[in-house]
């Protein structure tokens, strides 16, 4: 049981990092990213392949995965210059799918659907195997805290106000002399950095990664976390990610006690449940469980 809780806690951590990163991109700055699964995969495979194929130490491979996410984020942000947000959504979804397809098809490098086996683990030799899961939970928790601290710092800094101005009306922000593109690229890159980190942490935790984990449905779970938690509010995001993950994993646990439903049906029910959770939350609390506090009441009035 406690093994189960530790593992669930670790997964919650991955989700929280992804959700915080998305909140930075969308909740605070208003830039859409439906390619989360792609960023996650990029981080996982960058770190995994570096250690497996090139023998790079984990301590260097994980930062490299973060940088890969950073680079991809900056590149995708450049697209936002020309696209309205709902169409940027489709394009980013495409970026995510492309990454998954490449991983799936270039199996000479990535092992494709067979899955990539990763031996290397951070501090793997220094910590006894029986304590390792708990240690890893601590490591992930530290990374969540780091992501939270960075996101909160950005939100509170003068820059946070600029970002929200861009979210509300990028034309006005540009007229006011804000370099909208530079801010967008920076924030998207920071978000990508943390998504890469989450991917790398995931890869070295499960030690066997395959493309079917990085389906677009992952992006959906993270989006649901952000919307349910309350876009723009970092604490709400932690709550949302926790709620979604506990729902996903907790129902798996319930499934163990009933024989009436096989695994396939149980997983279908779980996804139906999470879809309904999103719709019901939006009906009852349109701005999420912990909404962002209004930063400027008059901006609503003039809308």
């Amino acid at each position, binding site marked *: 049981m406690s093994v189960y809780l530790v593992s669930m806690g670790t997964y919650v951590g991955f989700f929280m990092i992804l959700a915080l990163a998305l909140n930075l991109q969308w909740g605070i700055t208003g830039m859409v990213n439906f390619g989360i699964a792609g960023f996650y995969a990029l981080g996982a495979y960058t770190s995994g392949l570096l250690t497996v194929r090139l023998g790079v130490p984990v301590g260097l491979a994980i930062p490299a995965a973060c940088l890969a996410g950073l680079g991809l984020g900056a590149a995708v942000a450049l*697209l936002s210059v*020309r696209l309205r947000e709902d169409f940027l*959504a489709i394009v980013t979804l*495409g970026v995510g799918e*492309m990454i998954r397809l490449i991983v799936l098809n270039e199996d000479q490098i990535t092992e494709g659907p067979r899955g990539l086996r990763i031996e290397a683990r951070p501090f793997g030799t220094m910590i006894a195997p029986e304590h390792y899961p708990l240690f890893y939970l601590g490591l992930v928790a530290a990374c969540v805290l780091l992501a939270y601290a960075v996101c909160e710092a950005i939100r509170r800094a003068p820059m946070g106000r600029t970002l929200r101005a861009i979210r509300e009306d990028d034309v006005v922000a540009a007229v006011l002399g804000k370099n909208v593109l530079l801010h967008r690229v920076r924030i998207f890159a920071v978000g990508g950095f943390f998504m890469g980190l989450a991917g790398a942490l995931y890869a070295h935790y499960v030690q066997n990664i395959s493309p079917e984990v990085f389906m677009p449905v992952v992006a959906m779970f993270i*989006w649901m976390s952000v*919307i349910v938690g309350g876009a723009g509010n970092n604490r709400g995001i932690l709550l949302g990610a926790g709620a979604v993950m506990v729902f996903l994993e907790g129902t798996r646990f319930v499934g163990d006690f009933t024989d009436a439903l096989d695994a*396939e049906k149980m997983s*279908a029910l779980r996804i139906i449940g999470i879809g309904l959770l999103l719709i019901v939350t*939006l009906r009852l609390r349109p701005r999420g469980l912990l909404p962002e506090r209004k930063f400027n009441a008059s901006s609503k009035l003039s809308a």
Partner: protein
Amino acid sequence: MSLQMIVNALVNAALIAPPAMAFSLLFGILRFPNFAIGGYITVGAFAAYTLNVPLGLPLPLAAAGAMTFTALVVWGAHVVVFRPMQGQSAITLLVVSIAVTLILENLIRLFFSADVRGFDIPLQRPWNVFGARITPEQVEIIVWSLVIGVMLHLLLAHTRIGRAMRAVADNPMLAAIRGVSAAHVTAFTTAICGALFGLTGVFAGLDLVIEPLVGWNLTIPIFAAAILGGIGSPYGAILGAILVGLAEEATILVLPSTYKIAVGFVIIAVLLLVRPQGLLGTAEIKK
């Protein structure tokens, strides 16, 4: 490019043109890219399957039943889910529409096992046209797709409700000022689009296989066709569908066929960056 590839491209185009037109119409009125269409198409395919195989109805009747059922589902989803959320941002609605697809897809998973299914129709030998193979079902799909294009054109251009549909899509405020009830027009539009998604499910069942992901796999090519033709331009959607079909076939020449589903995305990305209004459209999709 061989004749066979052109035939394949045409079949693909005929498959995605009707839902691309429907997507375009829905977007015109509801103003967000509706990912729920994947779920709707899957519902159509399984409704037709249920009527055709376990219940033994002939396929044309089953198709009509599936269209009616899907129209009801689409209208129901609009009333229960999307209409109460009208004030939400396009992105929130987009996420909700993906959730709707996930719910429909998994409801079907819950009631049907994961087996691959097909309709109960006699196996027919493909025809040979100048060396290219085409099955009678594929010919039917092309013919029906053309018929539907013409009917939709007549509806939009020459009927009162069709004019109202275009007016509401164009300028909902002015339409209300002139006395058009947006609720009626929206209900009618969702029902028409629902019937088209249902029919697409039937076609997909004829040409591909019937499985829960059938709609999701068609979603991106449909978006690509609609965006290529110009959002809000149902005729452009037909042209877009043909171009997407050709592009998908052409890709197979240079890349493994598993990359085929990426073609739609690449078309969307390139087109949105180069010519955001689409080939025929005038609607703004640029910021």
